[in-house]
């Protein structure tokens, strides 16, 4: 019995270590930027997205890539900076952190409500 308990504890410990600390290299800024735009533009585009960013249903992704400059492979965040972008991205990955997953509209609404600087960035406003 103690041996089984020990094994269970060790297994749990190892799994915890894996879950908490096992991940790959940092994704480049351009990949993060494109991930955000993809989550916003997978149809049907949320009403709040259309209202805040004034983008059409079709061509949303192309429009936003062009506004933000994320279409370029050399893109890097300036304003807002990468940590701020990652903070604002959290509502969008609440359902899943896998790419090509549409963010639910309430989560999108939360993004626009809490991150005006991000909204400005997506609108192509330069600092």
């Amino acid at each position, binding site marked *: 019995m103690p041996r089984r308990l020990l094994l269970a*504890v060790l297994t749990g410990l190892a799994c915890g270590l894996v879950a908490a600390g096992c991940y790959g290299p940092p994704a480049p800024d351009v990949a993060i930027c494109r991930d955000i735009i993809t989550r916003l533009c997978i149809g049907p585009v949320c009403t709040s997205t259309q209202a805040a960013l004034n983008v059409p249903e079709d061509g949303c992704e192309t429009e936003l890539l062009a506004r933000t400059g994320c279409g370029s492979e050399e893109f890097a965040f300036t304003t807002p900076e990468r940590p701020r972008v990652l903070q604002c991205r959290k509502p969008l990955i609440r359902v899943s952190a896998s790419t090509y997953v549409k963010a639910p509209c309430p989560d999108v609404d939360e993004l626009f409500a809490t991150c005006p600087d991000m909204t400005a960035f997506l609108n192509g406003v330069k600092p």
Partner: protein
Amino acid sequence: MTTLVLTLRAPPAGVQRALALGLAVATAGCAPIDVTTRTERGPLLRTYSRPQVVAGGAQVEVRADWPTLKLTLVGFDTCRAETVEEYAEERITERTSRAAGPALATGIANVLAAGVLYGVSFAVSSVPNVSYINEAGHYGPSTQQYVQSSALITLLIGLPALAVGAIGYLRSGVDVETAKVEQVVSQKDARCNDRPAAGPVTLVGPKGAVAVKAAVDGAVDFQAAELTGAPEGIALGEVELAVDEEGQQRLWGFGACVQLERDAPKKLEMMGEGELLARAERLRQCRVVRGEAMAEPIRAVDVELSRRRETGSPGAFAPGSNVASFEEAVSAYAPKLKFANGSTDLGRLDTPEALDGQAVLLEGIVAEGMTSNIGVIQVGERQLYLFIPPRRAWGGDFGNGTRIEAVAVMAGTQTVGERTLPLARAVWMRAAF
């Protein structure tokens, strides 16, 4: 080009120590050791005799040369010869761990599997999972990282199991201690080293010490005038000495002589019945010490007792221990009443006070030995107590159911517990009919 990074965050130092301690405790708990000890006797090595001297005691010899009581005290040891057999004996202690084997196998298998997984991890893709970006902006782990993590988990399972197995294996074993043991197979005790005993000698009477003197070179003499009472026993220091029967008779006789000397001179005719009987008994006891010197006083008392008996004085019949046989008791006390099954005299027991002092011939069955000095005798349908004086001249064991006959003197009634019965004091008693 994508860079693969495997990052394992180490827990804080305190947590590490706690984990190490917990691991050690858990590991020790997983490796219980069964300890079995057995003793095996080997061959007989030798047999030898071992002499020993142990504490013995002291013996006292009593002689009486009136008016001197002469005691000779001899101390002695007990010489003991023991026959000892010496054996070789092996004390075998076996320590086994039932968990050692399975734990060792599990540990080895898991450690080997961890090694294999780690090796295989270099053969699989190290490209990170780009279809996943976590909150911190990191890609998901590569297949290589997954395999290496599995190797780590397997290693974490295997190492403690390996430790449990190794500890159990190392602690297992057999210890054999060989020793010589002795067994005493027989012993013989013999008195030895006789020597004069020294120390304070006390003559002990019914109410305590009657005289104390120091023994010198194992001898001490007491003059009759030095005694404050009649001695019944002798003690050396705090230890009461065993006195042989002959010596005990002399001691009692000497005590009786001392008591007679202390009695105020009085004419026999003037003595009360109890006083006369007591004197008669003391005279007979004293005869053991003073011999023929007591012949005349005894004869005088007997004459007086005979006179009173012939005149019907009930006090002439009294218990005593100085008749030498049943027939002598019958002759001396001439019982006029007979208590036996069916005898007409039994009816006299209705008024035991009226029988006070009368000698009776008693035939009955011991119904109940209540103490060593008093018992219940069943005579037909009646019962009575029979008092047996501590200093009696007859012997024998009269257990329950023994048929006895006795010469006795009636002495009123006696209450023991809630039972009141007529009391008879035995003069002589023997098994009969």
